[in-house]
């Protein structure tokens, strides 16, 4: 979950205070190249692959990953964005408002969809994304790419492509941004 989103969704809101830089911009850059190669290896090319970035943190990563795939394989895969707010299981527990309008400008049926997010934590966002995705059609397969897997899963969900596995405490926070990845805390 992007820092911006956390700040705006009380009671999880607060101000992110970085403690440790765990990846710098070059690390993220290299991880995205490796992940692009892994996507191509796993799917024997990118012909039927489409990327869907989760609002808001996954969207820029999905675009960068698509750019890398284009440079390696020649064709740019379709990129969509998905806001899962309406499919979350904590509606009514905390205020959840959509940040952006979902935009999936391609036919989902029969494609391999790679969901892209910045941080994988409890897995609940991904569960909501899987639920939302099926309202657009029936993908051939769904795969998951995340920049950071920080553990603490609450659902049986695992990523297919990982930028970095980062052991964290539950009360820590991870912020993925343009210049890298920071580990820190949210101050309420």
């Amino acid at each position, binding site marked *: 979950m992007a820092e911006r989103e956390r700040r*705006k969704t009380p009671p999880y809101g607060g101000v992110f205070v970085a403690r440790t830089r765990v990846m710098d911009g070059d690390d993220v850059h290299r991880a995205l190249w490796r992940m692009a190669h892994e996507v191509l290896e796993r799917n024997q090319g990118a012909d039927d692959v489409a990327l869907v970035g989760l609002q808001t943190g996954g969207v820029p990563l999905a675009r960068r990953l698509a750019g890398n795939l284009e440079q390696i394989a020649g064709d740019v895969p379709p990129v969509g964005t998905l*806001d899962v*707010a*309406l*499919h979350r299981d904590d*509606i*009514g*527990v*905390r*205020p*959840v*408002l*959509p*940040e952006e*309008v*979902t*935009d999936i400008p391609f036919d*989902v049926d029969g494609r391999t969809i790679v969901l892209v997010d910045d941080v994988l934590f409890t897995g609940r966002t991904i569960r909501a994304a899987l*639920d*939302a995705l*099926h*309202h*657009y*059609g029936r993908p051939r397969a769904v795969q998951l790419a995340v920049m950071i897997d920080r553990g603490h899963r609450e659902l049986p969900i695992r990523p297919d492509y990982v930028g970095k596995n980062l052991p964290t405490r539950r009360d820590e926070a991870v912020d993925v941004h343009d210049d890298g990845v920071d580990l820190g805390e949210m101050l309420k």
Partner: protein
Amino acid sequence: MTATRLHRHILSVADLGRDGLEELLKLTDTFVEVSARAIPKAPALRGKTVVSLFYEDSTRTRLSFETAAKRLSADTMTFSVSSSSVKKGESVRDTVETIEAMGIDALVVRHGSAGVPLRVAGWVHDRVSVINAGDGWHEHPTQALLDCYTIRQHRGGLEGMRIAIVGDVKHSRVARSDVLAYTALGAEVVLVAPPTLLPPSLEGWPVTVSHDLDGVLGSVDVVGLLRMQTERTTEALIPSLREYTAGYGLTRARLDRLDDKVLVMHPGPMNRGVEISADAATSDRAVILDQVRNGVAVRMAVLYLLLGTGALS
């Protein structure tokens, strides 16, 4: 997006203010997208029950709210006077308390008397939201929201728009809600009607008034027509419908003089041949069916904001 702390109920456009209106319009974009999906449904209001309590006839508003609730996976119940215990003399309050005791989350209320939704809001308990779906000559807030959304969709926004509201303003709750919403969002409103179809006093209304439709049509961006409410006007307010049409109807001749960009709107149901000619109703400038389409998305936004976010308690 931060949730503006709205009231628990939506009874009047005035309660929303500019921020509330803008938040709802922005949120409506999301629900327009949901409605365009292969499966146009989201599980956001699973387990919630929305009841339509309609003491007056309605096609589009009742079906629109029900469609909106169903697309958000809420359960819906419909109460219509003709098949209920109202026929046996049950009061509004007893009816409301009975329905509420069944365990519901929202009441969508339409009544022929102004103020009934406000009274209902005072009777229900904390966890029930009341939405005004039209009360007498007072207000119809979700109609104003869908009108604003439709203008925004076609023209980018309401700021600086000049909007004519034409016809029976006196008996129109749509006009009252539209004036509040349009002006709150920065548009300029001109009411066009014969003096007998205007409210006795327009003091405090942020509008200008004209009795000359032809003089106004050249300078407006939107023409919003109102229905001649033949079921409400028992008094002799106009000489005849034909004379009304000659002075205030959007006839073929007037349609032809409109600029191509002008939007023609009507809240429905239309009296074709009275306030709007068949040509005008089906012309490229008419966005009347867009209004209906957007109505579902706007009501999804209203229901989601009241019942789904928990931001309003």
